[in-house]
C-alpha cells in the first residue's frame, strides 16, 4: 500500500515547473468537467488529454500502474454487471441472460471517466511535494484550520504506521494469526484501543510542546509561490480543454450513454 503520492515529486518536468496553485486549480476544474461528461467519445478524449498530462509529468509507469490497478478492482464490476442489469427489454442474449448494449456503453463510460480522473490526480499531486500542495490549497482560500489539520494528520500517519508495524511484530512474536473469527475481532478492537490511548497521551505532549514554541493556530512555512507568464499559458490550455470537452459533450452530436434519468 503506497501512501506517498509525492515519491517522485523531485523529477523535473513541465508539470513540476507549473505554479502549484495554478496546477491544482486548473486541473481541478478539468477533473470536475470530466466527472460531468455523458458521452463515450468525449470521455475517451478526456482520457487522451489526461494521458498527455501524465506524459508531461514524467512519472515512472510502474508507479502509476499500481494505483490504476487498484481502481480497476472497483470498476470492473460495473463493466460485468451493468450489461445484464440494465432495465428494460433487450433483444440480445449472452450466456442465456439478457444483454443490453446500453448497459455496456454505460459501464465503459464509467470506467473511462474514472481512469481519466485518476491519471489527472497523479499529474496534480504526483508532481509536487504533499506539503507544498497543501500550502497551495491554503492560498486558494481553503480554510486555514482545515489545511492545518491536513498537514498534522499527514505528519502523524507515518508515526502511527510505524507504531502499527511494531505492534504487529509484537503480536506475531506471540503467535497471533488473523483468522475470520470472533477472537480476531476482539484482538483488533483492543489493538485499536491501544493505538488510541497512546495517541491521546501523545497529543497532550505535542500540544504543550507547540505552545511553548509560540504556536498560535498556524504553521509558518518557507514555501513561496511565484507565477510567470508560462503558468497562465498552461492554465489556459487545461481550462480550455475542459470547456471544449463539456461543450462538445452537450452539443448533442454524440450518443449519450443513458443513465435512465435523462
Amino acid at each position: 500500500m503506497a501512501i506517498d503520492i509525492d515519491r517522485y515529486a523531485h523529477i523535473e518536468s513541465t508539470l513540476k515547473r507549473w505554479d502549484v496553485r495554478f496546477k491544482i486549480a486548473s486541473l481541478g476544474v478539468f477533473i470536475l468537467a470530466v466527472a460531468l461528461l455523458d458521452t463515450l467519445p468525449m470521455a475517451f478524449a478526456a482520457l487522451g488529454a489526461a494521458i498527455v498530462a501524465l506524459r508531461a509529468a514524467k512519472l515512472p509507469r510502474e508507479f502509476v500502474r499500481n494505483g490504476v490497478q487498484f481502481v480497476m478492482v472497483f470498476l470492473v464490476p460495473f463493466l460485468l454487471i451493468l450489461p445484464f442489469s440494465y432495465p428494460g427489454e433487450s433483444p440480445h442474449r449472452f450466456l442465456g441472460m439478457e444483454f443490453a448494449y446500453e448497459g455496456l456503453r454505460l459501464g465503459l463510460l464509467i470506467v473511462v471517466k474514472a481512469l481519466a480522473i485518476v491519471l489527472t490526480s497523479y499529474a496534480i499531486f504526483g508532481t509536487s511535494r504533499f506539503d507544498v500542495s497543501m500550502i497551495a490549497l491554503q492560498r486558494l482560500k481553503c480554510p486555514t484550520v482545515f489545511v492545518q489539520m491536513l498537514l498534522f494528520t499527514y505528519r502523524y500517519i507515518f508515526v502511527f504506521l510505524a507504531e502499527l508495524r511494531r505492534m504487529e511484530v509484537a503480536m506475531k512474536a506471540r503467535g497471533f494469526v488473523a483468522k475470520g473469527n470472533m477472537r480476531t475481532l476482539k484482538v483488533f478492537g483492543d489493538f485499536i484501543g491501544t493505538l488510541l490511548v497512546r495517541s491521546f497521551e501523545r497529543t497532550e505532549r505535542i500540544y504543550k510542546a507547540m505552545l511553548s514554541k509560540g504556536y498560535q493556530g498556524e504553521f509558518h512555512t518557507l514555501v513561496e509561490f511565484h507565477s510567470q507568464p508560462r503558468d497562465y499559458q498552461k492554465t489556459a490550455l487545461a481550462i480550455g480543454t475542459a470547456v471544449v470537452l463539456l461543450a462538445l459533450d452537450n452539443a448533442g452530436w454524440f450518443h449519450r450513454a443513458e443513465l435512465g434519468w435523462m
Partner: protein
Amino acid sequence: MHVADGVLSGPVWGAGFAAAAALAAVTLRKVDMEDIPKISVVTSVFFVASLIHFPVGPSSLHLILNGLVGVVLGIRAFPAILLGIVLQAILFGHGGVSVIGVNTVMMGVGALCAYWVWLQRKRFNFPKRDVAFGAIAGAVAIIVSGFILAMALYTTGEALWAMAGMVFIYHIPLMLIEGAVAGACVGFLLRVKPEVLSDTQPRLRSEPTHE
C-alpha cells in the same frame, strides 16, 4: 467502501460537495485551537487502523471504523472524516477527488449517527451497557453509510438500481464485523482510559489504601 470517480451523475456528486461543505462548516465552528492537534492525531490513528485487513473466506476486507470515530470524537467526527477522505483521495493515488463530497457525507453522517446512539446509552441500565452501545454504534454507522451509498447510486439513474441493492446487502455482514470490533474497542478503552471516549468523565482514581 467508497464510490469511485465517474460513477455518479453531476447533480448527485454536486449535492455531495454542498452537503459536506455545509456539515463541515457547522461542525468546524466548535473547533478551537486546542482541538487542532487532537482531532488530527486521532484522525491519523483511524486512518492507519483502517488499513488493517480482516480475513473473510478466501478474501479480506478492511475496517472502516467510522462509528468509533463518532464515539471518540463526538460532533468533531465530521471534520475528522473529511480529513481522512481528502487524504485518501490525494495520497493513495486511487482517485476519488470528484467524489470527496459524497464519500464524506456517507461516512460522516454514519459517524454522527453513531455518536447519537452512544449518547442514548444513559437511558438504559444493564451490565455491559457501554460495550453493547459501542457495538450498536459501530454497526449503525456502517448501515447508515451503506444506505447513503445505495441512495447515491439509486438517485443517479435507473440503470444503477440493481447495483444499489447489491451494495446495500454487502453492508450487512460488514455491519456485524464493525460492530464487534467497536464493542471490543469501547470495552478496552473503558478499562484503560475512559476519557478517550466522548461523553465520559475521567475515572476517579481511588486513593491508595495503606492497611
